[in-house]
């Protein structure tokens, strides 16, 4: 019984990282960034490629290779997120609500197929030697084996989340981001460079997603070009569950969705895993659209 718990928390941590990206963008721009899942997937692939380069270069300590992979992936994913925003969302900033949504779907399809063509239509393997030392079990609780990898994933995710929280609360840019999400026009009038803040939001969210991508590839031992679509939808559900626009909410939502998935499989079998997240989403949206920690938003006339 405990194993679904530990698995769920691990996966939930990863979902939470991705959900943060969704929630931040929604908070500032009021739009769902459909292409966020694809940025996560690109981070995954670049991480694997970087590790491959490290292998090609010869013997390199695992720690250094991993750190390098994280940084390179986060850099490229951030660049990708920034590009998405500039090309597909910024021109539509003042358009009807439908337009950026459709544009996002277009970006998502483009990126998915781009990676599929550029890299592989099949699975890509996470190079085993870099996760090998972490795969051994750290301790055993009941029938659940907790591996060092799981602890690493949870630890790194929590560290990043705390880092983000501190960033948003304590730094100037973080304050600017909060201001923009409250009232964009006023923030602009008080001298905050709104465009740059929006770009920064995308950059940060994408970096987190890239980290999540590498962690997930390490955990699953493989990556695939459509991983973004699958994980993206679940992470978005998590963001909505916690209250979209709300950073602690996204974290909470992530863990809940992770646990729900494992719980569903434990009780009802693997057939129903995919539905778990969607069913949760539909139930929340019908009964409590503002999410667990979100505030009621009045429709502006």
């Amino acid at each position: 019984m405990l194993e679904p718990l530990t698995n769920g928390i691990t996966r939930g941590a990863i979902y939470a990282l991705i959900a943060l990206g969704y929630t931040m963008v929604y908070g500032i721009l009021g739009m769902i960034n459909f292409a966020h899942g694809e940025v996560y997937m690109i981070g995954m692939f670049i991480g694997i490629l970087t590790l491959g380069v490290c292998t090609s270069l010869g013997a390199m300590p695992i720690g250094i290779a991993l750190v390098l992979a994280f940084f390179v992936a986060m850099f490229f994913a951030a660049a990708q997120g920034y590009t998405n925003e500039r090309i597909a969302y910024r021109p539509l900033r003042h358009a009807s609500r439908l337009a950026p949504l459709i544009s996002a779907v277009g970006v998502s399809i483009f990126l998915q197929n781009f990676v599929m063509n550029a890299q592989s239509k099949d699975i890509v393997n996470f190079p085993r030697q870099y996760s090998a030392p972490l795969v051994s079990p750290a301790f055993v609780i009941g029938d659940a084996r907790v591996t060092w990898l799981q602890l690493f994933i949870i630890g790194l995710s929590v560290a990043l989340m705390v880092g983000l929280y501190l960033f948003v609360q304590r730094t100037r840019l973080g304050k600017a981001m909060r201001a923009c999400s409250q009232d964009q026009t006023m923030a602009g009038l008080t001298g905050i460079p709104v465009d740059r803040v929006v770009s920064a939001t995308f950059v940060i969210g994408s970096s987190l997603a890239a980290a999540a991508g590498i962690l997930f590839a390490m955990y699953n031992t493989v990556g695939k070009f459509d991983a973004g679509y699958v994980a993206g939808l679940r992470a978005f559900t998590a963001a909505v569950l916690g209250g979209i626009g709300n950073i602690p909410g996204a974290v909470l939502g992530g863990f809940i969705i992770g646990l729900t998935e494992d719980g569903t499989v434990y009780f009802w079998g693997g057939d129903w895993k995919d539905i778990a997240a969607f069913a949760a989403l539909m139930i929340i949206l019908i009964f409590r659209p503002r999410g667990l920690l979100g505030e009621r938003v009045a429709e502006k006339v």
Partner: protein
Amino acid sequence: MITRSLFLRMVLPVVSLFGAATLMVGCGGSNAKDDEVIYIGVAGPFTGPQAKIGTDMAQGVDLAVAEWNERGGISGKKIVVIRGDDEAQPKQATAVAQDLVAKKVVGVVGHFNSGCSIPASEVFNDKKVVMISPASTNPRVTDRGYNGVFRVCGRDDQQGTVAGKFAIEQLKASRIAILHDKTTYGEGLANEFKKTIESLGVEPVYFGGVSKEELDFRAVISAIKAQNPDLWYFGGIYDQGGPLLNQARQSGLTAPLMSGDGLIDKELIKSAGKNAEGSYLTFGPDPARVPTAKTFIAKYRAKHGEPGAYSIYGYDAANVLLNAIAKSPSTKFDDLADFIHGNTFDSAMGPLAFDERGDIKGTYYILWIVKDGEFVVWEKNETAD
């Protein structure tokens, strides 16, 4: 006065409709030199996740066709292969089938996936084109009694039965868990396996499915682990088999895995590495041990590199088809079909003969095991460690 909007609203629909019609007519795919060429079709997944095994099969066909063309073709006519990519999707499969028929192929080697072969065979049967599948193992492919549908591989009920008997009689397994990928092939195979072990008195301790896009199996692995199996079976393809094995071993599920021909591919070893050691797989006889196959392997290596598991099946299917076209009274559908039914063919895997349903006669599947990163035929003294 013609305004811009009027221009658009009047001209664009007309242009698009007539333009499309002209394109369709003009590029109606009329093969000019019909008399000097014989077309055969190859249908399978050439893009998408199973692109590699689809391409392996197609290259086997290419090799056979090249050999025939070097010998002068059939009655002096050159043989040309037309490929149709079905992306392993049933909807594309029927579109591809119709496309090949429109391009006037005499016969088709394909499709690859059972889920594609079944609907495509409807089209081929309707339009009277012979179809030989190198890899579709679901019983329904030939069970519907179409005269022109054949396969050079085995059937899932044979495969599942062989696996089931092996599990009970050789491995003496008593707690068996069964997993599948909810596809026609995977679930069908798992069901056959389940039927066999039940008939031998063993109930599976777990039976469930995962979506074929799923890459995170830990949830079902914990459920399986909780049942303490001494063997577990997976009906599915290698792109899921790899991560499945990895995650299972990481979670502490040490029991050996048994699976079918969907997992036999080098990609499995690349993905799972040592975690695949000791896995049992059902597959056809080892080409390396059949003398006629050795020549095939050498020729294939020279042209296309290392053969995949299905290259030889593509090669054999193509040879059966080409032999039939060459030696039957005419290239009409009924003559070809009857010819294939009534004759034995020499193939790289040995002599092939077909029964009235279109399946090959004789049992076919044997057990293989993964040893030291290679697929080897299981011998009695080998055990999974």
